[in-house]
């Protein structure tokens, strides 16, 4: 994956009085059980371990994942007492210590 830009997507918009957050990350989420068909070698385990979401700086969601989550993880949830213009920030880190974050303004 070196040199390949990863694109993560996130959207937060008001729906039924709550902020509906939708997140789509780009990550291989390798189980460690897969064999590379060309080399015949086992593809090493590589997965997002932890992910947190903050709404205006307050923690609202915290997850711990295994490699059983699907490749390019998808997550959707609803934040109560939110309004347009609020900031929603999601941070995550994987088992190799790589971390990243994405932020959206509620619309």
């Amino acid at each position, binding site marked *: 994956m070196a040199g390949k830009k990863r694109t993560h997507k996130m959207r937060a918009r008001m729906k039924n009085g709550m902020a509906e957050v939708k997140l789509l990350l780009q990550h291989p989420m390798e189980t460690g059980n897969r064999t590379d068909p060309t080399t015949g070698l086992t593809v090493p385990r590589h997965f997002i371990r932890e992910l947190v979401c903050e709404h205006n700086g307050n923690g609202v969601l915290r997850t711990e994942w295994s490699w*059983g989550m*699907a490749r390019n993880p998808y997550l959707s949830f609803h934040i109560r007492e939110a309004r347009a213009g609020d900031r929603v920030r999601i941070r995550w880190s994987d088992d190799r210590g790589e971390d990243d974050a994405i932020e959206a303004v509620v619309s």
Partner: protein
Amino acid sequence: MKRRVFLKAGLTAGQIAIAAKAGLLWPAAVLATDWPANAFLATSFEDAVATLFAGEPVEESERVQLEAQGIAENGATVPIAVRTDLAGPLTVTLFSVNNPTPAVGRFGLSPQLDGYFATRIKMAKSGDVVAVVTADGRHYGARRRIQVTAGGCG
């Protein structure tokens, strides 16, 4: 309300020590280190449950709803959603019973969330998906059979 015991399992001393650390802190700590390694590495559903819930019983409950299609064409990405009216803070743990390592993820929801989330998991083969919601120290489970036409853990 009719409640039957959903699953109850024994526990070793080491597993208790790990499970005791499983509580959530609010506000969310910055990528803290209590990632439940033993539960995620457990190769049976029973062991994963025993590790995560300290041997406490999990009751089947109508207050937890697991939403998913009964047939998944691609086990590599199976959409599921969990919905509950239980009061937060909540911890929701997902399992795919027939995966090589059944525990898939743990989701800590603050009271500011509405007891719902949707995601996608891997399923190695057909079997049950289980969601356990922990609220106020008790564990409430829902289970749903999903038939997988192409496995996703290869």
